[in-house]
């Protein structure tokens, strides 16, 4: 793309920019990616003007004009020292799908983007999630701009290019960007900010998505690839807060990493309590947006998530698909484990009368503080991979393994007992006993 080439040139130019903040050049590294989505030929001009703007600003509070609109540059240069609310008014009708932030989460710009996202929240609805989602996918996944045309220049955080603490400015907005706690002037926090910003961004994103006065408008013909919005105004406020939380939880999980989603979920629960006018639920594309179906969907996702976890626990379930078969496998496994416990307890019951001679062994094992692993660890870690078929052969091989590991005891009686045990094992479930018994672990 020619635009990328232009931007690369610009990027080289930007390297000559006197770093009033070294993050600037790094931030400029973002430009290529942003411009990747830009299709208009005005990219170069915009980027140039943006770079100029950046040069003119002393701090990072300056808005980065990601917009590719040609007219944008004029307005920006005209007002780059005033508040950026007019920028919001520069409607993002033109705003294309811009994926700004889906790369290095460690980039120091991440610290900056919250301000931008806040700033742009009023009229950059497509950008919001892009800005907010540091690790989001490339698709613009949400909110048509219409949502945020709420007379909202006041709502978004107005980022003034002043060296003041942005936090105060941020909080000056309707409490939307409270989660953004960073100081652009403080570069030490960049590292922390880079880590924490996804969360704060998500908070900001969530908060921006759920202000009271937000009304979903369906007249958005912007970014067809967006999610279908639920017909909230029709259903009014009948949706429960809970479903909203669940929906937000799911939405956020789609976009952010899981840790972010959890924190954002907690935050959303704090945020949602006072807001009750309009509860927005973002449905995914092509899915029903009924309240019941949404709750059902959340429940189903929970169940499928737990089934996946169980799939990891139960051996031999990787090829199994479907809940029913998985449940069968799980039930089989639990039953076999319980049978194994019974068998082992019986074995211990037979062994215990014999240990009065060796009763000291038990006491040694018991009294050794924290060295149970040592005492038990003489049985080496045996990782025997076994096929489910060919069971009798496996028993013999695993029997030899056990015999090898019990060489330390050096008693042939034990090996014979072990072979007896293996034959006894065959009476039990053929799939599970041997590997579970053979895969010892050295405890720590």
């Amino acid at each position, binding site marked *: 793309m020619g635009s990328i080439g232009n931007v690369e040139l610009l990027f080289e130019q930007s390297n000559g920019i006197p770093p009033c903040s070294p993050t600037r050049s790094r931030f400029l590294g973002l430009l290529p990616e942003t411009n990747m989505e830009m299709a208009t030929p005005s990219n170069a001009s915009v980027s140039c003007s943006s770079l100029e703007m950046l040069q003119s600003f002393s701090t990072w509070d300056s808005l980065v004009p990601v917009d590719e609109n040609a007219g944008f540059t004029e307005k920006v240069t005209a007002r780059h020292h005033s508040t950026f609310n007019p920028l919001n008014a520069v409607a993002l009708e033109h705003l294309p799908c811009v994926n700004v932030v889906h790369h290095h989460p460690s980039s120091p710009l991440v610290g900056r983007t919250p301000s931008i996202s806040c700033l742009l929240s009023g009229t950059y609805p497509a950008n919001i999630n892009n800005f907010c989602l540091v690790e989001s996918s490339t698709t613009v996944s949400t909110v048509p701009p219409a949502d945020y045309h709420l007379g909202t220049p006041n709502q978004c955080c107005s980022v003034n290019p002043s060296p003041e603490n942005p936090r105060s400015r941020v909080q000056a907005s309707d409490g939307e960007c409270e989660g953004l706690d960073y100081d652009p002037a403080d570069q030490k926090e960049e590292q922390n900010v880079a880590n924490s910003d996804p969360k704060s961004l998500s908070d900001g994103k969530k908060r921006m998505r759920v202000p009271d006065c937000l009304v979903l408008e369906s007249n958005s013909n912007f970014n067809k690839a967006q999610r279908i919005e639920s017909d909230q105004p029709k259903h009014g406020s009948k949706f429960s807060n809970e479903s909203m939380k669940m929906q937000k939880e799911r939405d956020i999980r789609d976009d952010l990493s899981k840790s972010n989603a959890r924190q954002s979920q907690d935050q959303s629960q704090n945020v949602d309590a006072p807001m009750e006018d309009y509860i927005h639920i973002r449905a995914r594309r092509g899915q029903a947006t009924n309240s019941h179906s949404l709750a059902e969907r959340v429940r189903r996702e929970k169940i499928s998530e*737990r089934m996946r976890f169980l799939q990891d626990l139960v051996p031999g379930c990787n090829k199994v698909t479907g809940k029913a078969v998985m449940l069968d496998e799980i039930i089989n496994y639990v039953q076999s484990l319980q049978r194994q*416990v019974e068998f082992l307890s019986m074995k211990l019951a037979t062994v215990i009368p014999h240990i009065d001679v060796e009763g000291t062994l038990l006491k040694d094992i018991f009294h050794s503080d924290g060295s149970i692993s040592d005492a038990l660890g003489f049985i080496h870690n045996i990782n025997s991979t076994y096929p489910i078929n060919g069971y009798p052969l496996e028993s013999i091989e695993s029997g030899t393994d056990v015999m090898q590991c019990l060489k330390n005891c050096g008693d042939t009686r034990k090996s014979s007992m072990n072979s007896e045990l293996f034959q006894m094992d065959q009476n039990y479930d053929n799939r599970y006993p041997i590997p579970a018994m053979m895969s*010892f672990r050295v405890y720590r």
Partner: protein
Amino acid sequence: RRMKPSRNPNSLPPMFARRFLKALTTINLSRRRSAVSARARRIKQAADVCLASAAAACNAKRAWSRAVLKRSRAVLCRQRRRQLRERRRIMAVPKSESCQQGRAELLRQLVPGGVGMDFCGLLEEAADYIKSLKAQVQVMQCIADSLSC
């Protein structure tokens, strides 16, 4: 006898091992003339209780551990013991149902304390229960092998 509570998920096998060995010594010191089967039953129960207590110490919010401990305390009372024996016979349901409801019921009966749970929580408890059972089997296997030397 209270162990020092350590909420570390990795410490379940050592904690269980310690408690189980203690229990074994207690059982070992008791009268030896009882039959092997009775002793085996007592050992198994001790193992379950030790596992449940270790799991409760590691991760306190698990329902199955509480259910096991509750059940074991009830067993001390003879009347409940009889009731439990009868219940055990009834609950030996063959796995004939193929629909998912039947399977969920089976899983509920297998996982202790799963009777009054919704499916979602049941899966979670089952996962934790499976993890603990694995640890139990491993520890008991190690002990059995070390004692059989």
